[in-house]
């Protein structure tokens, strides 16, 4: 995937309802930290995404309507057998909205993830939409876990 480290354009895209996107605020070629911000709308609710890509980790924040930080979760592959574990670091109400998202991002990308989100609880459709958008963007940014070779009979 071609990636232009100097791109910092603001563009509006009609695809998938993305309203506004600012990509890669990396200041120079040597910066190994890339920031991608974009917004989306779901049922008239504005949703904001901030993804910070470190070489070996992803941090993401999902803001639903406001810029409140929300609850913070960390997820990574752990022993035994590299299963994915997730824990709440800050906030962490009993509903754990966001912990499932963090866990599934690790499953899809293979990279440890720290996720902050302020999505309201009891909104499964919103949560699913948000997760889909975030994973789409991560795949666009080049995060795909290599798939095992298909077994042929």
């Amino acid at each position, binding site marked *: 995937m071609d990636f232009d480290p100097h791109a910092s354009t603001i563009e509006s895209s009609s695809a998938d309802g993305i309203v506004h996107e600012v990509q890669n605020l990396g200041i120079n070629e040597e910066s190994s930290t890339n920031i991608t911000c974009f917004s989306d709308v779901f049922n008239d609710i504005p949703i904001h995404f901030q993804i910070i890509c470190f070489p070996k980790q992803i941090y993401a924040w999902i803001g639903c309507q406001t810029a409140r930080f929300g609850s*913070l979760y960390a997820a990574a592959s752990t022993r035994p057998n590299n299963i994915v574990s997730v824990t709440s670091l800050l906030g962490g109400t009993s509903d754990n909205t966001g912990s499932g998202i963090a866990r599934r991002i690790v499953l899809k990308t293979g990279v440890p993830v720290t996720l902050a989100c302020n999505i309201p609880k009891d909104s499964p459709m919103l949560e699913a939409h948000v997760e889909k958008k975030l994973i789409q963007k991560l795949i666009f940014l080049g995060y795909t876990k290599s798939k095992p070779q298909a077994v042929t009979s």
Partner: protein
Amino acid sequence: ILAFPFEDIGFAEIQSQFSWQESKVDIVICSYDDQFLVMATQIGTMGTIMHARKEEGMLNTPTFNVSVIFGKRDEPMLLACARQLIEHISNSGSSKPLTLSLGLKDHSMEILKGIVSAVIENRLW
């Protein structure tokens, strides 16, 4: 670079970098509605994550609570760094708590002082 990527909500972020002994430290500072997030890394990950907040007490001088929420819990210099920054935030008039992540190769006083200076120079409070 200071950016306000989202219209209509109070969110801002700054990305910066400084050189330290032949390696670079990437710094990102974000301001959310109810919190500041500061990340400084040399090692490609967020490293140890700490949370620091001001506690409103009965006294005239504020007290601060600083704790590690993820990572190394036996490095007092990291907590000292968080403590310095939350005090600076408080003295600048903000009551917002701070989440600080430090992913560093060494935890010497010199590099931590360098990080505190670089963050204060690029602060969002």
